[in-house]
């Protein structure tokens, strides 16, 4: 009979943020590295102690990421995976399609929060499968462009500039010409 172990990881990133908040204020650059790298990706995987070399870990804050490993057996037949990882942001998954920039900025941590679930089968003779759950709450993220006023203004300015070039041609050509044809016009292509 297979044995299952379940591990639950509490929001360790909240704790880590507070612990590291006492660091030297002069090392501003280092503090940014702290924010970027102190929190493990897919905490559930960390709990399992799985070897990252044979497990595909989800990358960065994505709406949904799934990693599988070892799909193929020794005879190239498809087998059930020994390791499985699922990581997602509940905030983006549920409300992402209608999420405005302003609403994101009100509670960015909600949309950075990721839940991870991972399983791993041990290599020893009992073949026990371990199941782990993790939650990662990033209260502060210096790399989050959406919370930076300067980025918001500059990106909006860029978008307006591109939009203006295209809309000039749209107004000149009328509503029936496909957008892709307008984008390919030399005067538009040159500007965008």
């Amino acid at each position, binding site marked *: 009979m297979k044995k299952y172990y379940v591990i639950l990881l509490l929001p360790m990133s909240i704790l880590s943020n507070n612990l590291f908040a006492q660091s030297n204020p002069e090392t501003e650059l280092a503090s940014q590295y702290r924010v970027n790298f102190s929190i493990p990706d897919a905490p559930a995987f960390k709990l399992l102690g799985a070897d990252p070399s044979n497990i595909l870990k989800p990358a960065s804050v994505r709406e949904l990421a799934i990693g599988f490993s070892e799909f193929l057996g020794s005879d190239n037949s498809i087998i059930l995976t020994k390791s499985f990882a699922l990581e997602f942001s509940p905030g983006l998954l549920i409300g992402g399609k209608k999420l405005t920039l302003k609403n994101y900025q009100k509670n960015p941590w909600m949309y950075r929060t990721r839940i991870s679930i991972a399983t791993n089968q041990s290599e020893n003779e009992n073949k026990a499968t371990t199941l782990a759950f993790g939650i990662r709450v990033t209260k502060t993220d210096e790399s989050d462009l959406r919370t930076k006023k300067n980025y918001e203004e500059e990106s909006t300015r860029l978008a307006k500039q591109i939009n203006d070039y295209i809309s000039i041609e749209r107004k000149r050509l009328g509503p029936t010409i496909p*957008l892709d044809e307008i984008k390919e016009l030399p005067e538009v292509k040159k500007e965008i």
Partner: protein
Amino acid sequence: MKTAKFNKNGGTIIAEITCGYAQPGAYTLLLWEANENKIVMEKKGNFINPDDDSYELPLPSKDNDGRLVDCLITIVITPPIKDYQADLTISQDENILGSETASGQSDGATVTVELFVKLESQ
């Protein structure tokens, strides 16, 4: 192209533009005259503040019969989220008459989409 059927004797027709996945961007809203290359109304905006992205179309409402609502939207894909969604929604007297959506994922820096909704009186 979607069609929004409106009440010619009803209230003001509203066009609203929204952008999801917390992506910044800008847009140009054009109202084209029926079967003509003539612009009746033009508005520009962005997604910094979503409260000012609703526009009242000209009155009386019956004059909008056959007109085309055209919205050009440029979205800046801000990592790590590659998804985007833009919506153009037409409403009258608090009833949604129709909407058009463009959505997807992009590895590029920006995406420009265009949404059309034709207005028809009933």
